[in-house]
């Protein structure tokens, strides 16, 4: 018989464990922002659908049944100022269905020129970018450092590098550049000078090994069943493909260095959006790769051309419970004002839009729940997303577009719809967001099959538009209208060698507002945001200090820049006339 004074070892052990865990949790909270009360903003702008007034007409093709996963994945959109007039133009990818492809038919992608009067004109044929391939995504870089933004398109069965000729046209230089050997199912891509030699290298993520002549039959295995409904097969059950890193040789060609660099993806995961970013502000680029249904990769650079994959130890690989998610779109932004870009990743339904807080030192914390994002996003399939300052209050808000992959869900009566509304989350300036999707007008709530998304100031008036490519039908342009009369500033950067200044970082101080951002190729879902950096300044009429950290290692500080202007800044020269950082137009050939 036990003495009453003798305690059981189990509660004691539990107490020790609980105490230990509490201590560890306190440790874990270090590095996070101090918790403050949410700051409710004033009246919100209305998010208007201005597509019709822009005269932009485009239709993404789509098979009605989506019997194959390859028919559900296209839809990247790129903002590219291809004529360097300072007004962002728009490129939409397009893709056929399997039947069309096997019959030799093509889908027309499209480039729209910004007319500087809030309308666009289709210039696709003149530009020569109508039929790159079965196009999935598009990103912007400058592979030959001539100052003309080039266009890179990822395809089912290859990639296409379009050289900007500087005369309003493009030429495919895929073969000359040494990229024709990339014949896999390419999805994500990103330009970035990882070795600091002044030339933009190129990463391409690949999805699955997929043969149109040997397709997994619709509904054939349990991998092709969703909530008891027969659907397309995959991604579970598909064999993934390795990724590719191409080093820019500086002479207009690339060399595949994937294996030597350690980023070849030996696990053959299903790669989607990839982004280069200096996530720890040490001057060296990290590479983040979102993998569908598997762990994300975070590659840490040694600055000499080698990388180490640290996704798990950085806590960006899985969710907070150790589950691999269907990672698709990637947004990066300093929404906390802690000086580091955090990451937001869109996912499949029954998962959630994952917010990974960057705590510095390449340590991240999944704050999806405590930031109020998870609960609002578990019922949708998310794709394109972006941190963008919706109301120019100096704090990055978060937008995401959604849309399921299985049209069959509409007929199954399981409470899930194929078309889904988009979502907007307002930054409450204390590490949390509020879902304001229902408070910004009806446009965002219209159910769509969203895919790519890109944010930028299309009309150079200090308001950030959001361009969305839908898998089915017309794209949408959202524009915040009304709201408080906040100030803003836009910076167009040009490096000494890299004329697009990719991955240059900026720290801007306006009174008590201190924001950071970085020029990035790629983002969202297989898309490209405006390469110019935009900062909302709230009531501040000037930026007191603008610090620029160039990829070359140089930095410079500018002071007293008046608000409500766009500035062009050249490495080593400060603010310059924009004409001096943009190349002179070439006469048509």
């Amino acid at each position, binding site marked *: 018989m036990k003495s009453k004074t003798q305690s059981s070892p189990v509660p004691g052990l539990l107490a020790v464990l609980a105490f230990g865990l509490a201590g560890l949790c306190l440790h874990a909270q270090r590095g996070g922002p101090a918790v403050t009360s949410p700051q409710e903003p004033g009246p919100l702008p209305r998010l208007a659908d201005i597509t019709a007034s822009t005269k932009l007409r485009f239709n993404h093709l789509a098979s009605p049944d989506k019997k194959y996963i390859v028919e559900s994945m296209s839809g990247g959109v790129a903002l590219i100022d291809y004529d360097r007039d300072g007004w962002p133009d728009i490129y939409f990818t397009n893709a056929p269905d399997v039947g069309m492809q096997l019959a030799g038919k093509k889908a027309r992608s499209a480039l729209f020129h910004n007319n500087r009067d809030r309308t666009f004109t289709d210039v696709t044929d003149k530009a020569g970018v109508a039929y790159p391939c079965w196009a999935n995504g598009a990103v912007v870089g400058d592979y030959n450092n001539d100052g003309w933004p080039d266009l890179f398109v990822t395809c089912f069965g290859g990639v296409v590098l379009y050289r900007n000729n500087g005369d309003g046209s493009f030429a495919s230089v895929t073969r000359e550049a040494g990229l024709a050997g990339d014949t896999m199912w390419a999805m994500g891509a990103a330009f970035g000078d990882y070795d600091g030699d002044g030339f933009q290298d190129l990463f391409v993520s690949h999805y699955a090994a997929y043969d149109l002549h040997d397709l997994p039959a619709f509904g054939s295995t349990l991998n092709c069943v969703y909530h008891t*409904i027969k659907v397309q097969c995959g991604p579970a059950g598909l064999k993934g493909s390795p990724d590719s890193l191409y080093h820019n040789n500086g002479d207009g060609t690339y060399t595949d260095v994937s294996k030597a660099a350690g980023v070849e993806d030996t696990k053959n995961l299903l790669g989607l959006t990839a982004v280069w970013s200096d996530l720890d502000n040490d001057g060296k680029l990290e590479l983040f790769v979102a993998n569908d249904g598997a762990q994300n990769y975070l590659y840490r650079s040694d600055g000499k051309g080698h990388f180490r994959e640290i996704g798990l130890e950085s806590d960006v690989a899985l969710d907070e419970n150790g589950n691999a998610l269907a990672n698709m779109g990637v947004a990066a932004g300093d929404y906390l004002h802690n000086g580091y870009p955090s990451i937001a990743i869109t996912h499949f339904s029954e998962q959630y839009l994952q917010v990974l807080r960057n705590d510095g030192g390449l*340590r991240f914390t999944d704050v999806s729940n405590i930031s109020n994002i998870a609960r609002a996003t578990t019922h949708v399939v998310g794709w394109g997303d972006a941190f963008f300052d919706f109301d120019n209050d100096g704090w990055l808000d978060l937008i995401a577009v959604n849309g399921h992959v299985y049209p069959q869900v509409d007929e199954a009566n399981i409470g899930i719809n194929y078309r889904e509304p988009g979502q907007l989350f307002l930054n409450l300036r204390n590490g949390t967001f509020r879902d304001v999707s229902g408070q910004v007008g009806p446009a965002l709530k219209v159910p769509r099959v969203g895919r790519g998304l890109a944010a930028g100031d299309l009309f150079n008036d200090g308001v950030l538009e959001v361009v969305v490519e839908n898998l089915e039908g017309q794209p949408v342009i959202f524009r915040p209208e009304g709201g408080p009369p906040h100030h803003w500033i836009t910076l167009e950067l040009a490096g000494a060698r890299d004329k697009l200044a990719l991955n240059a970082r900026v720290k801007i101080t306006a009174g008590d507002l201190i924001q950071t951002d970085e020029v990035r190729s790629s983002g969202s879902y297989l898309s490209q945001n405006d390469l110019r950096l935009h900062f909302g300044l709230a009531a501040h009429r000037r930026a007191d200090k603008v610090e620029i950290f160039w990829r070359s290692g140089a930095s410079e500080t500018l002071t007293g820049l008046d608000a409500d202007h766009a500035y062009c800044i050249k490495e080593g020269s400060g603010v310059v006339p924009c004409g001096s950082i943009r190349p002179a137009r070439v006469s048509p050939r």
Partner: protein
Amino acid sequence: MIAHFRLSGLYRRAGRTADAAREMEAFRHYQELKDKLSKVFKGRTAPAKQP
């Protein structure tokens, strides 16, 4: 499995790297087992009739 994953993260943040590595190894072990089982299960033929 979740416990191993979370413990690994907590140890890492606390600077206890050896403990973190041990827990991550345990997590990976169970994750691989889970993945193998999942592949076997999901590769089965779907039921002929839809409900």
